[in-house]
């Protein structure tokens, strides 16, 4: 009866998902080292969603259940927070297994919201997931800065530079602030001003969010990150400050 239920025979037939992930991770992500203790699952907020948990996910991968893994939506419900690695006695990189599982389905079949946000980020060099252009960003920053310099004279000298060469810090910004709540930009500017920090935004790559990474579209992820880093390097800044 047992062979009707447990099908391990197909394991050698083709390259397994888990083997491919092991190849790209240092030490194979320790993916072979699971003691099945369940510490990962006991502290995972995603445990139970879609009848899945980290231990079960890893066991399914180890058993070669690649089709079931590809069909599961659970990899999109794991935030890859890495708590499972932290508590794991064998330091198994389950989040990397989850991340790579996202790429098992065709790009256009991945969650529409994440897909749309990534595609939007690819439209402009701002890398904004909300599609904000360089001109719109510049307008908002200058407009808000001007307004606050006037209304709060103690901050008449406050700056919010874009593409300032040789600044100490390159600061990125979640698109939601310039687009939907520009007043929320100001407190951070004030703190940087009072601290005497020499900082700048980049006209390119100022947007801090990277939905292409979440989409598991590695090429697009690299493009978004590279656009921002290239701008920071072009300006000769010393430190990249990620606010996301």
């Amino acid at each position, binding site marked *: 009866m047992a062979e009707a239920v447990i099908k391990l025979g197909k394991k050698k037939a083709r390259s397994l998902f888990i083997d491919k992930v092991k190849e790209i991770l240092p030490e194979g992500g320790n993916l072979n080292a699971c003691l099945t203790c369940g510490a990962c699952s006991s502290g995972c907020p995603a445990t139970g969603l879609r009848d899945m948990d980290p231990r079960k996910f890893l066991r399914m991968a180890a058993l070669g259940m690649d089709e079931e893994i590809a069909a599961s939506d659970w990899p999109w419900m794991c935030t890859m927070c890495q708590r499972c690695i932290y508590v794991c006695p064998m330091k198994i990189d389950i989040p990397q297994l989850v991340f790579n599982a996202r790429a098992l389905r065709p790009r256009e079949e991945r969650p529409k919201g994440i897909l749309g946000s990534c595609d939007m980020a690819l439209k402009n060099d701002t890398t904004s997931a909300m599609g904000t252009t360089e001109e719109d960003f510049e307008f908002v920053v200058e407009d808000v800065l001007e307004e606050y310099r006037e209304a*709060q004279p103690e901050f008449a000298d406050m700056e919010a530079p874009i593409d300032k060469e040789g600044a100490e810090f390159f600061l990125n910004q979640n698109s939601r602030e310039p687009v939907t709540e520009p007043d929320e930009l100001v407190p951070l500017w004030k703190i940087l001003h*009072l601290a005497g920090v020499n900082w700048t935004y980049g006209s390119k790559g100022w947007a801090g969010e990277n939905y292409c990474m979440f989409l598991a579209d590695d090429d697009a992820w690299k493009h978004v990150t590279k656009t921002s880093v290239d701008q920071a390097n072009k300006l000769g800044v010393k430190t990249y400050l990620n606010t996301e």
Partner: protein
Amino acid sequence: MVKSVVGEENFIDMQPNRSNNYCCGGGGGFLQSGFKDERLQYGKLKDDQIKATGADYCIAGCHNCHAQIHELSEHYGGNYPVVHLWTLICLSLGILGPNEREYLGDDLKEVNVFHPETAM
């Protein structure tokens, strides 16, 4: 940092804390994934943690966390305000203007307002 802003006696850490803490569920693309019910269920643990502190405010470290915890606060009925750290830093420095208080609760909305005449 938080203690220096709100005062040592006003800081209540959640349990478990630091590296043993739980993710709120706003990251990894979850906010845009379309799986709202699952996202809120994921965040129940975080909401329970926050409520257990009895604190009046929750400080979120990034924009994704802020959006998620803010929604948890409303969804599960705790209705605790969720604020960015920059808001409290500026409030403590006395430089938080009337239009920079979107996420402060009613108890702090009118406290120590910088240039109140510029309210819009």
